[in-house]
């Protein structure tokens, strides 16, 4: 490999050590990248084990980046692996990304994807992205640093809930491995190419088919990209992707089984909501690690009048960026709350 030296000398940042991040890390190590950064604030949980092969049963509860580092240190003796046991946020994104030459986005949510794309656009860092949905995957290569990266393809984040609530638990490991492999092989091709181009690959596991497309400049994408780091720091990617934090009772589909009505009132506060899907946890309990609501995609936080719940919703959005979290306007005392509708006999 004639460009081996270039590959070996490059500093690569991997954001997200999940289904795609695991194969990306292992393969970047195998092709000889000697300086790798790893960002993820998550811990290993049982549901990760089927497709996140760096982790085993004994690692449940440990920080993903620490387990990944142990694995790499055991397998390879010449890799400098820096770990960041935290999620990428507006506050730390610029500082962390700035220290690397290339970025691999292996995250699992739109707010992070748009944030990473914008940060890489601003800092002019080539970006490789991988994403999956069901039995299909997408790979993006953004080697042309004078472009708007992900926003050239999707200028604005999707606001459809159908996209956001797609079930990720059924994604088979051979798909995430394939997507990771495609990302790394495009990274290698980047060094062989004289032209800097952006491209998009769609992979269908069932048919084992690959489609590749060129990405051209998109005026709307350019307009939507922050132009300065100051503008970037003022962005709110949660609101761009999920909309406002508040929602009315009428907008909630109470028959949906994938929602959680999170009642954060203190235990002595009544009356209780008697609909299904209600989980009562105080803010203290949530902050000390009770996260029984995480098996649902949509979380609606309620309190008595909708004030305290707004703070909790903001907190949850920052800690769990891939969950759709809302604060319910008017709380349990709202005229349209299930409590009042029931009393009026409707």
């Amino acid at each position: 490999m004639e460009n081996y030296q270039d590959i070996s000398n490059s500093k690569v940042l991997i954001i997200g050590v999940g289904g795609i991040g695991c194969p990306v890390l292992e393969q970047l190590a195998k092709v000889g990248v000697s300086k790798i950064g790893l960002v993820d604030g998550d811990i290993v949980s049982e549901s990760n084990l089927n497709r996140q092969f760096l982790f085993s049963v004994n690692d449940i509860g440990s920080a993903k980046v620490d387990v990944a580092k142990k694995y790499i240190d055991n397998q390879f003796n010449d890799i400098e692996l820096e770990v960041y046991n935290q999620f990428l946020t507006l506050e730390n994104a610029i500082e962390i990304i700035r220290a690397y030459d290339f970025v691999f986005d292996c995250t699992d949510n739109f707010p992070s994807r748009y944030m990473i794309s914008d940060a890489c656009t601003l800092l002019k860092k080539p970006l490789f992205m991988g994403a999956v949905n069901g039995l299909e995957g997408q790979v993006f290569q953004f080697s042309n640093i004078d472009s708007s990266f992900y926003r050239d393809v999707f200028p604005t984040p999707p606001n459809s809930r159908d996209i956001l609530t797609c079930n990720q638990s059924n994604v088979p490991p051979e798909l995430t491995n394939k997507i990771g492999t495609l990302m790394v092989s495009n990274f290698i091709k980047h060094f062989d190419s004289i032209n800097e181009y952006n491209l998009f690959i769609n992979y269908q596991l069932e048919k084992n088919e690959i489609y590749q497309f060129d990405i051209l400049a998109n005026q709307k994408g350019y307009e939507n990209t922050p132009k300065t780091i100051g503008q970037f720091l003022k962005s709110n990617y949660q609101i761009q992707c999920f909309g406002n934090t508040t929602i009315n009772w009428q907008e909630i589909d109470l028959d949906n089984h994938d929602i959680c009505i999170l009642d954060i009132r203190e235990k002595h506060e009544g009356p209780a909501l008697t609909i299904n899907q209600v989980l009562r946890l105080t803010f203290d309990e949530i902050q000390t690690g009770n996260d029984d609501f995480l098996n649902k995609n949509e979380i609606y936080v309620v309190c008595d009048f909708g004030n305290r719940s707004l703070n909790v919703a903001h907190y949850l959005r920052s800690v769990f960026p891939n969950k759709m979290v809302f604060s319910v306007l008017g709380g349990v005392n709202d005229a349209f709350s299930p409590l009042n509708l029931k009393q009026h006999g409707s």
Partner: protein
Amino acid sequence: MVIKILAFGMLNGILPEEITFQNEGVDLELFRAYLIENYPSITQYSYSIAVNHAIVNQNTELKNGDVIALMPPFSGG
């Protein structure tokens, strides 16, 4: 003229594999309007469009045999 369709992700299964138009001179805007009118459920998804091998952001003339891909963004990792 016949336009072939590649529908990815959530759009797969909603759209047919190809659509035949009686007239020539169908452009991308017209084609998009045709899809929305005949397959209204696609409007609940966001998606980008590629004509043949490039993602396009502007209206463009279509010709017989063109392949149009519709791709929604994926978030999973």
